[in-house]
């Protein structure tokens, strides 16, 4: 089987979704580590220098563009599969089993993924695009040679609006629900289902990616809003 055929099979496509999913999971971890600097009460020095570095380092920028491609790929292939899956049952059941036979989370991947995608687009438009392509107030810090863009203050200003806070929290709820199933599901897709490791995989999937990370992300706008 040629590569083109292999990755066009249902399993091949799922492998791509799983692989891109894993990559996105790793990104989420790194992104959270950076973003938590928003909560430092240092006038944004740590966060803004971090943002400055990330925004101008060649390798990071290369990865950042890769990331966007991966997101598009992940969403696109998942969409392809979803369309195919819907088409596989042209006449629907009148009665469905609900949660009797499968978890609610596992059935909402496409919905949660779509909410996440909308969130990501809004998020990029609000913070990433202005940072890269628009004028932004700058700030000077001790030990930093020249003034740098003050993304920190822009972010704080953004989260003074409760509607944006709610949107970000909703986005993180979608992330949580998406990963509660997605993380362990990707392992199954890669064939990793083993009684010795399933406990660990399920634990990390639920508590780290499903709960801790989304909660920590969501905490940032909430804390900023409450501290205004």
């Amino acid at each position, binding site marked *: 089987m040629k590569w083109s055929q292999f990755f066009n099979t249902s399993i091949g496509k799922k492998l791509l979704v799983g692989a891109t999913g894993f990559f996105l999971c790793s990104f989420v971890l790194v992104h959270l580590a950076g973003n938590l600097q928003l909560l430092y009460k240092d006038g944004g020095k740590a966060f803004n220098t971090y943002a400055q570095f990330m925004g101008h380092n060649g390798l990071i920028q290369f990865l950042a563009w890769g990331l966007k491609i991966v997101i598009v790929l992940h969403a696109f292939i998942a969409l392809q*599969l979803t369309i195919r899956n819907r088409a596989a049952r042209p*006449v629907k059941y009148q009665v469905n089993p609900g949660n009797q036979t499968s978890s609610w989370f596992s059935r909402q991947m496409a919905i949660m993924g779509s909410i996440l995608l909308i969130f990501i687009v809004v998020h990029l438009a609000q913070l990433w695009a202005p940072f890269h392509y628009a004028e932004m107030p700058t700030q000077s810090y001790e030990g930093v040679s020249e003034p740098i863009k003050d993304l920190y203050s822009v972010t704080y200003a953004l989260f003074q609006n409760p509607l944006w806070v709610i949107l970000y929290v909703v986005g993180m709820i979608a992330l949580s629900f998406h990963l509660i199933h997605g993380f362990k599901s990707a392992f199954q897709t890669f064939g990793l*289902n083993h009684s010795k490791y399933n406990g660990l995989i399920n634990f990390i999937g639920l508590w780290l990616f499903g709960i801790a990370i989304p909660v920590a992300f969501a905490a940032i706008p909430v804390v900023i809003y409450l501290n205004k």
Partner: protein
Amino acid sequence: MEHYNMNLTLKVWRQKNKNDQGRFETLQAKNISSEMSFLEMFDVVNEELINEGKEPIAFDHDCREGICGMCSMHINGRAHGPWEGTTTCQLHMRAFKDGDTIVVEPWRAGAFPVLKDLTVDRSAFDRIIEAGGYVSVNTGNAQDANNIPVEKHKADLAFAAAACIGCGACVAACKNSSAMLFVSAKVSQLALLPQGHPERRTRALNMVAQMDKEGFGSCTNTGACEAECPKEISLTNIARLNREFINAGFTSEK
């Protein structure tokens, strides 16, 4: 066990043939004994329909002891009904009570077109087996059976996978109409046994390709198939199929 009689309302899918649109028909099933099997309840309803000069409900069934895999009803939203690890024919009316309304639908999947009423065409499964669900050994080729020792644990796992009766409940239960549990059961059985090794790569590739061609959906690991499988085939088989497929895809030379 106390026995009781009940009156039920059935909402059953009626469809004249492949090309008919189909619709639900509401029927009354009276004086149904709790000792009847679900299909015997249908026998009673059909007898009544025949006596009234109407057409009985067509449904697939044969052995009525849970092994042939022919019976296939989606009952109140559940493939093979509410009991776990049970085929429709082994489901008994004790599962219901007087006054219940029961909705009975055929397996729903594009790859399983409805032929009439509750009868569907599952020949797609045969074609998947044709694509590689066998060991290529002609009659008479075999060596002495005990020349092939098999680790007991693996033999037991292979048996558990081979218990699949090909009823299609996995497809019916899956929100994507995926046939992965069925395919993985056969691939696993033969991947676990040394007899299946010479063909394991082509088997995994060809069976998955055929599965896709038949129009089944893909697996999103919801686990509904495992929950509804009357033979309780494990999801670990799907993981094994994925491993077999990855290994084959990355290492096959053609």
